[in-house]
């Protein structure tokens, strides 16, 4: 009798211990940030495993914006492809066209007139200003300040209006032709000899607009950099050491914010940048603040490059002599350029036909995004937004 009782007591003790160990289990909470979320810049999805406010594992899920441009390019002719590629990074559409067109021209062996190269350079820098102004608008908004948005977007509108006045498109200019740029005035007639140049007054207006851009950048700096809360939210947050940035293949302002002064405009000759005097701003720590500051400073440098280019633009034709039907000889080439989001490259393989055999697009945002799991590990939810915003990616540029 007594032994049975003690056995029961053992069982009771055992059961109570079992139930305690079951009760103490806490399942992790999985928080889906996106694909529909106010600050994922489109349709990025982050699967965050969170413990309260802290996320200890964040996995980005991409592909919601995949439009198959690499495949589509294989069934288009060369002149048609610019309409596709300027939709990759739609915030700076013009800049996407340039490396592709240069790749095609180099394979074809066409010498581009100098005036056309200068115009490409001016418009690329205008696209860079537009892109960086969008960043300057959206980043404070992600930190909770709504007003800088309006200052930055108003100025971007001025730049986009000018882009529109010369190319006809705000976002998707489609202005490059193989051998130069599209003659803007009176084009389209095959029988009449037409004047091939930019609209009258465009260069002077652009030069004046750059002064306004510079003053707006100063305003933005006073509004944002003078704010203690912004400093508290961005300084020391999302630190990326230079080696890590390079290891993840980051490029552009994100790499330069980590202190690596690498800029393709200085080392490559895809456009005549070497003729102008400009600085490559680099950050000291590689935190969110540095990424913000580098983009602000680059906007200033771009405005200065545009003014220098307008002052020294040569005259001449806009388009080289190219055949009516463009067939590019067999061969392959890789051309890369310093785009607003970072390094953008096109690997173009031609088998001698009307369109490319293969077009591999290396987009900046895709590589910049790859650091997210590393950098978001252990971040607080507000910092996830702050870090993600500071990387300045566009989902069209990630998924293509």
């Amino acid at each position, binding site marked *: 009798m007594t032994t049975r009782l003690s056995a029961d007591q053992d069982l009771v003790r055992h059961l109570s211990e079992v139930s305690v160990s079951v009760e103490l289990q806490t399942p992790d909470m999985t928080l889906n940030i996106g694909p529909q979320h106010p600050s994922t810049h489109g349709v990025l999805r982050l699967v965050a495993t969170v413990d309260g406010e802290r996320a200890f594992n964040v996995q980005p899920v991409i592909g919601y914006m995949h439009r198959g441009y690499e495949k589509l390019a294989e069934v288009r002719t060369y002149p048609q492809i610019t309409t596709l590629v300027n939709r990759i990074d739609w915030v700076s559409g013009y800049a996407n066209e340039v490396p592709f067109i240069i790749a095609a021209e180099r394979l074809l062996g066409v010498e581009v007139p100098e005036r056309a190269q200068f115009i490409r350079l001016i418009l690329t820098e205008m696209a860079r200003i537009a892109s960086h102004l969008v960043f300057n608008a959206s980043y404070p908004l992600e930190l*909770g300040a709504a007003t800088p948005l*309006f200052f930055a977007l108003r100025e971007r509108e001025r730049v986009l209006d000018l882009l529109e006045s010369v190319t006809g498109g705000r976002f998707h200019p489609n202005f490059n032709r193989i051998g130069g740029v599209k003659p803007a005035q009176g084009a389209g007639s095959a029988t009449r000899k037409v004047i091939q140049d930019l609209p009258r007054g465009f260069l002077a207006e652009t030069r004046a607009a750059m002064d306004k851009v510079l003053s707006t950048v100063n305003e933005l700096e006073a509004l944002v950099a003078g704010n203690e809360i912004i400093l508290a*939210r961005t300084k020391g947050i999302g630190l990326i050491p230079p080696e890590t940035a390079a290891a993840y293949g980051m490029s552009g302002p994100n790499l330069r914010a980590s202190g690596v002064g690498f800029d393709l405009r200085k080392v490559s000759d895809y456009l005549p940048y070497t003729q102008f005097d400009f600085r490559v701003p680099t950050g000291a720590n590689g935190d969110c603040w540095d990424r913000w500051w580098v983009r602000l400073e680059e906007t200033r440098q771009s405005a200065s490059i545009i003014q220098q280019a307008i002052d020294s633009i040569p005259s001449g034709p806009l388009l080289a002599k190219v055949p009516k039907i463009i067939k590019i000889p067999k061969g392959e080439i890789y051309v890369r350029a310093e785009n607003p989001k970072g390094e953008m490259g096109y690997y173009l393989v031609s088998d001698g036909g009307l369109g490319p055999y293969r077009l591999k697009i290396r987009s900046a945002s895709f590589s910049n995004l790859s650091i997210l799991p590393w950098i978001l590990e252990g971040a607080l939810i507000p910092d996830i937004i702050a870090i993600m915003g500071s990387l300045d990616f566009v989902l069209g540029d990630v998924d293509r």
Partner: protein
Amino acid sequence: MNFWLELAIKLVVAAGIIPVVGMVIGFAEMKLSAKMQSRMGPYFAGGRWGWAQLIADGVKFFQKEDLIPADADRPVFKWAPALVLASTVAILVPIPFGPQVVGRNLDLGIFYALAVSSLSTIGVLMAGWSSANKYSLIGGLRAAGQLIAYELPLVLAVVGVVILAGTMSLNGIVEAQASWFSERGWQFGLPFVIVQFIGFGIFMIATLAELSRIPFDMPIAESELVMGYVTEYSGFRFLFFFLAEFANMFSLSAIAATLFLGGYWVPGLSQPQLNFVGPIVLFAKIGVLVFAMIWFRWTFPRFREDQLQAIAWKWLIPLSLANILATGLLKVVV
């Protein structure tokens, strides 16, 4: 006057004042933010200045479907907005708009007002919990964390005023400011903000946190938590939260104006005159405070939750304790 008649009048006035004040402040926010951002703001509704925009918005909300998520805790979800709005109305009870123009002159008026103002956080927590949405839950918990951090400085900042006035009745506090120095028939009044400027600053910061407005809007945090605890609300329940935010701005500003800026009192007017002029004076003082809140809203970014806690515990609470000590010494010495 008949008690029941008086009660009926007070109820009608309170029921009218909340939507009207909410709409006026909402409209002011729209127009002021537009001004700060080089925009026009509402322009078409009503013909001139878009004055009917908020009415149109309100009507729009009533036309919307009242969506309740399938997994929601239905009764809690339904009652949360009502609780938030109810606390806003309840704060109005002890606020004096004139010597006799007061809902109820409570002996523990300020104590009561601060207590019921915290009630809205329970509504927020209910909304966050019952929505069956992770963003709402995080938003609700942030609101709760904020409440714990900010109730203390809010109450401690008021202690200085109570020491100076020697009463917790809001009428008494206004009268104490009106007759701060009284010598040989001479009455010389000053608002308490003159010596309680630290307390005033702490009270306003804590009020912003209590209202969860920028820079302390982490429970809503549009860019992080979509809309926080209001994410799942639609239709007139959303309108309740919307209205409660603006009405809460009004009622908490009214408390701040009463405690620190002299309430309905202006120099040189007798008590009967103040019964008529008092409401206008108080509204003007509230207007200044509400303007400042709107101004902050469109100027500052948002803090992080841990930074907010650090500010509350490392700065505001020690500062307010020091303020109480200094006020006590002042009271004893002077």
